[in-house]
């Protein structure tokens, strides 16, 4: 027997669950989410859990700022029994080169013009914000108190449970094997537990976005890359904001739990699906971060892991439908910042699927921008 759903969402990460919830909230409850493993098992659950609105393009600033406003009330919005652990203790972004500093001045001007309360700070001020910060070689920093941390596991689960309460079916352990297209529109999704007749398919498959796209004949221009990360034992609160440097390729934040989570984006990392771990990462990570935050030397490493960035040609997500395949929508290519955008992305993509005007104009984030050559390059990524 072939089952049916109006919308099939592929991927039980935070964006898939947020889209499913928002569809149901906007009145479309005949939705099924397919997750081949368990919720949050892919990139979402492996991410650094940072949330920031200090971006370098107007689009990312608008999306992230709106998302942060949504995170502020998300526990209540989703009626969550536990806590998504949203903490707004800021992001401190360090500048070490003249080029970086000049870019940061532009970024702050742009952010302020959009209402984001970021500001330039001197190395002395930075030390006041993060006691113990070593400012050697630092030209300055930018700081925004609205930024911070949120727990990706709880957030995803909160979305999934809220969606289920509204009637959405969340199917974990069910893998999508194929998508049938007839006369230019999606008709059927073939899964490991049988076929579903559908009107709409949403590709929110994270690192598997490209193979899912290939099922409908689309070449989605993204690639995957391993990013490694570690967590320490917990200690008393000593560092409020996330400390991050693009030129040193690291980020480091103390979570509400007390542990420090930090990552290093290795510029020589090879593309692919490897999510193994290496001792070279540990050494490099620690050698880069401890001169800046010497207090960390006394903390013990508890665990290391890795996850995949799915990177688009301009490091901005690909959102929405495509004239090439009717009924096929995408929320892919987040380039390492998919978690923090999920609240607003869920709402906007749901609006697109419902055929409504979107509450923020994201038409330039379509797949066709690469054909048109209209890339929106983001300068501020780790």
């Amino acid at each position: 027997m072939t089952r049916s759903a109006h919308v099939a969402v592929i991927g039980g990460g935070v964006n898939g669950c947020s889209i499913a919830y928002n569809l149901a909230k906007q009145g479309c409850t005949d939705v099924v989410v397919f997750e081949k493993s368990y919720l949050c098992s892919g990139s979402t659950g492996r991410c650094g859990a940072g949330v920031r609105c200090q971006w370098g393009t107007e689009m990312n600033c608008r999306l992230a700022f709106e998302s942060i406003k949504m995170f502020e009330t998300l526990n209540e919005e989703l009626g969550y029994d536990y806590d998504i652990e949203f903490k707004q203790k800021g992001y401190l972004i360090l500048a070490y080169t003249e080029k970086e500093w000049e870019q940061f001045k532009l970024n702050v001007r742009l952010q302020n013009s959009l209402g984001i309360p970021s500001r330039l700070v001197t190395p002395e001020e930075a030390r006041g914000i993060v006691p113990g910060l070593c400012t050697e070689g630092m030209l300055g920093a930018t700081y925004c108190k609205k930024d911070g941390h949120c727990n990706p596991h709880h957030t995803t689960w909160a979305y999934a449970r809220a969606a289920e309460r509204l009637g959405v079916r969340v199917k974990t352990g069910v893998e999508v094997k194929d998508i049938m297209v007839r006369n230019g529109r999606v008709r059927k999704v073939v899964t490991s537990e049988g076929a579903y007749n559908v009107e709409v398919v949403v590709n929110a498959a994270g690192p598997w976005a490209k193979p899912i796209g290939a099922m409908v004949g689309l070449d989605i221009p993204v690639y995957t890359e391993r990013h490694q990360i570690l967590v320490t034992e917990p200690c008393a609160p000593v560092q409020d904001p996330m400390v991050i440097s693009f030129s040193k390729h690291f980020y480091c934040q103390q979570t509400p739990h007390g542990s420090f989570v930090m990552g290093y984006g290795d510029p020589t990392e090879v593309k692919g699906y490897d999510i193994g771990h290496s001792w070279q990462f540990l050494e490099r990570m620690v050698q880069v971060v401890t001169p800046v935050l010497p207090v960390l030397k006394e903390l013990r490493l508890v665990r290391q892991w890795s996850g995949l960035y799915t990177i688009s040609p301009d490091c901005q997500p690909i959102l929405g439908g495509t004239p090439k395949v009717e009924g096929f929508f995408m929320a892919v290519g987040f380039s390492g910042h998919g978690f923090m955008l999920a609240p607003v992305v869920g709402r906007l993509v749901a609006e697109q699927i419902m055929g409504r005007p979107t509450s923020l104009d994201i038409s330039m984030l379509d797949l066709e921008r690469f054909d048109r050559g209209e890339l929106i390059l983001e300068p501020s990524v780790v």
Partner: protein
Amino acid sequence: MDEDRVIICRCEEVTLKRVRELLDKGLHTMDEIKRISRCGMGPCQGKTCRPLLAQEIANYLGIDVGSVALPTFRPPTKPVKLGVIARGDECD
């Protein structure tokens, strides 16, 4: 037995009550329960709580404990100070 006073994960202070509550809410794998409750995420790397949690899941689902999938074992086996790793390329 007072489930609220029985500790499954000592590092993260996860009680039996919490584990059973999550099982009732539909989390039936060690990976899921770990990520929501932090059970097994502490400095001992789950050395104590893994078998306890696996047994709880097996009992709840009425399956053999051997068929409960274990989460990935991740390095290091024992916590190491970052300062020690930072000196990794020096000779002692």
